[in-house]
């Protein structure tokens, strides 16, 4: 497995969900008008619990629990707990995001300026398109990798998640590729994220990576619970 492939696998395992199967339920939003501006409001103790499924097998892989530990003007600091669904083994990591949920530091990797596809643009609105570049630095063993991509806010729609929860959300698509192509292996990622202003974070996250066009990893993260510390 190449370094990039391993990184992709780790990234997918760290925070992902699967693709496919978004049942074409009723996607008509409760509020037909998306908010004109979105303010992300988070505080210590806010937490989001996601189920992470392998989208190839539909197997529940991981319970992912994200809790805010600190918030400043420039960062959202979180504790991320991974619970292996089959062994119940737990591990935790500190993950640092920018104020728009773009990942800056996962503990194992540092992203400059940030990992675009976990976040949202500050001026989010349906139809918005943009391109981005970021550099990934692996801490141990040291390594640097560059990525470039394009994104689009494709719609404002209703999305059903776990536990009977449903949210009005922006659907955002990201297409990212490692650059340059190394060892004739083209590595690409396709991500679809549903960002719900009412939950202050994404509520569903579909991740797919391909190597030379062939499916490598495919996962779906779906929100199971969102709460704020009382």
């Amino acid at each position: 497995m190449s370094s990039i492939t391993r990184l992709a696998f780790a990234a997918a395992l760290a925070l992902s969900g699967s693709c496919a199967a978004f049942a074409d339920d009723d996607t008509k939003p409760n509020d037909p008008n998306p908010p004109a501006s979105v303010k992300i409001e988070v505080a210590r103790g806010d937490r989001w619990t996601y189920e992470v499924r392998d989208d190839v097998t539909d197997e529940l892989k991981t319970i992912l629990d994200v809790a805010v530990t600190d918030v400043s003007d420039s960062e959202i600091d979180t504790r991320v707990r991974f619970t292996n669904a089959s062994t119940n083994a737990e591990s935790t990591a500190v993950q640092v995001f920018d104020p728009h949920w773009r990942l800056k530091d996962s503990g194992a990797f540092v992203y400059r300026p940030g990992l675009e596809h976990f976040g949202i643009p500050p001026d989010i609105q349906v139809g918005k398109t943009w391109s981005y570049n970021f550099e990934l630095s692996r801490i141990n063993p040291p390594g640097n990798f560059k990525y470039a991509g394009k994104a689009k806010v494709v719609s404002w729609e209703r999305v059903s998640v776990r536990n009977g929860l449903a949210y009005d959300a922006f659907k955002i698509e990201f297409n990212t590729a490692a650059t340059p192509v190394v060892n004739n292996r083209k590595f690409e990622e396709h991500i679809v994220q549903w960002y719900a202003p009412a939950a202050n974070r994404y509520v569903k996250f579909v991740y797919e990576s391909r190597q030379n066009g062939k499916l490598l990893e495919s996962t779906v993260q779906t929100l199971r619970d969102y709460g704020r510390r009382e």
Partner: protein
Amino acid sequence: MSQLGVGAFASVLLVAVAASAVAEDASKLDPTAAPIDAKIQVSPGDSWTYDLRDDVTGDVKGSVVFEVTKAADGEIETRTTRQMSSTNAKTTTVQRFDARWRRTDNGKYVWRPHLDTSGVPDALQIGKSWSFKFEALRKGSAQTEEYAGVGKVEAWERVTLPNGAAYDAFKIDVADTQTSGSGLAGRKHENHAVMWFAPAVNRLVKMIDESRDNGKLRDATVQTLREYKPAAK
């Protein structure tokens, strides 16, 4: 002011500062009433059940039960059962401690000589401070992690637990930093524990522990005693 006077003033100031930092659920006691060199007396069959709360979110995290299976030769061996609220999964392990409840083996890790952030120092008395070093070895791995830290017995105080029970306890503050080993990779890993040891139950009645990576909070848990059951005589 005489040197003695300056010393006394400094002591009063220190006590005052410490007192102001006492948690709302704890109140200072007459320090002269604290037992001298409290003994820890445990027997097979003694058990302690603790509730675990996530100190980041405030959520109930689960519970842990320590049941003594052996207490001899300066070692306490326990059957430890942990139940997590998120999955209801129950795991049982053998955990070993020295005679002061400092963990030496939890099944996954071995600590040499022991994990100071889990137990009580020798010659327990208010004001005692000490420094320590230990290494942690993950079983099946050749790599060790080394840690160094300091501890202090801060106070003798009454601590009230969520179940309403109250205990007279030593408040002990212990902090360590990883100094070498796997996973460090230029980052700083720190652990900090505040423990309340109640001689009446021969164990901790409350513990707040947190870990930080590069100064950022990685995890924080509060453990409070729900039930202490000495073995039937």
